[in-house]
């Protein structure tokens, strides 16, 4: 106990409070908490640039998916096709408008906001520049919003809706449905590339 190591060489598992010496793993390897198996450090080669590319793709996909139809329906000559914006705005009037606001937020605004925050934080880091103003705050917000970004759940919701009214009318997937499917994969890829510990460290060193 006499040789207390420097605090900056230590890392604490946020989920179980176990403390370790930082031993940065090689690219592609992961440092996992031995007590609760939380991934603590998972660096990747050129992760920053890759994440920014994926983020740009997500940004374009979300915008495109917002305005193109994701489902169309046809029954007895009547036809209707809807985009996410249509779906979200259906609860207009009364307290149910809260549901539409929440839906738009969780499937469009929050994914878009997260993407923009991540790009804002990582661009200077990748370019070897000092961190952006309020980068720590931006990254914290992006992480806090992660569970509230629900584009992938919406994609499954489309599939459920399709089967639910399949006997009522003829239903077909529109382009936006496939965009949401790609989006789902991209969001997973982006999250697995992102090593939070590395980001926090890079935001600190150049302060």
């Amino acid at each position, binding site marked *: 106990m006499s040789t*207390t*190591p420097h605090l*900056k060489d*230590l*890392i604490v*598992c*946020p*989920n*179980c*409070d*176990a*403390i*370790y*010496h*930082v*031993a940065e793993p090689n690219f592609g390897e992961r440092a*996992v908490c*031995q*007590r*609760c198996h939380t991934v603590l450090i998972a660096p990747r080669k050129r992760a920053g640039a890759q994440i920014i590319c994926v983020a740009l793709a997500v940004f374009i996909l979300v915008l495109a998916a917002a305005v193109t139809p*994701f*489902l*169309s*329906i046809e*029954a*007895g000559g*009547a036809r*209707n096709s*809807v985009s996410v914006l249509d*779906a*979200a705005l*259906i*609860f207009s009037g009364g*307290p*149910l408008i*809260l*549901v539409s606001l*929440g*839906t738009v937020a969780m499937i469009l605004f929050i994914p878009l906001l997260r993407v923009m925050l991540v790009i804002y934080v990582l661009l200077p880091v990748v370019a070897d520049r000092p961190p952006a103003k309020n980068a*720590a705050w931006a990254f*914290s917000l992006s*992480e806090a919003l992660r*569970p509230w970004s*629900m584009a992938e*759940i*919406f994609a*499954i*919701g*489309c599939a*459920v*809706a399709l*089967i*639910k*009214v399949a*006997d*009522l009318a003829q239903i077909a997937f529109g382009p936006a449905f496939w965009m949401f499917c790609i989006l789902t994969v991209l969001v997973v890829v982006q999250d697995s590339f992102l090593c*939070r510990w590395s980001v*926090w460290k890079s*935001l*600190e060193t150049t302060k």
Partner: protein
Amino acid sequence: MEIARNDKIVTAREIGVVGCQRCTKVWPLGTKRCTRCGAQIVSRDHKALQRVWAWWIVGLICYIPANLYPMLQTRTLVSVQQDTIIGGVITLINHGSFGIALVIFLASVMIPVGKFLAIAFLALAAQRGTTSPSKQRMGLYEIVEYIGRWSMIDVFVVAILSSLVQLNALAAVNPGPAALFFGLSVIFTMLSAQSFDARLIWDAERS
């Protein structure tokens, strides 16, 4: 990664330091705020349990009207039908769509009820101590965190259906008040789970 002291797992609290739960940086005990990420630092957040219970109760209160009011109102040429969550599942079973009935039953009944029970169990175990192994309770907590968001699927299905199925005289689907209460219930239970301090899981077994 190497452990601080040989093979035995040592916690930050045992050696008189405290870890930032947001960015894993280590600080001397008593530090109030992490200057790297701006998060508040507490060695053990016992107030967190009060927040867990507060959100839990509000979520449960919202879950009651979510089951009593109709989720969807389906109007066709021959009939007007109002379905509650359970009613919708029964309708689906009557139509022979067992797969979708199962998805909706899982997302809207099993997951929410299971989540209420799981959070209550974790919070009680942290308050009173328990003999159940920490690893199992950590696994339960991770499942709750991961799966809770998926309950939102039913709200999205309602939003999708009510915008899609608007075929003039032929058929129309409109949202019911339960969609709002159910959405709120999901949000509140997510906040409840997020408020929980996972480190308490590991303390409970030791004491």
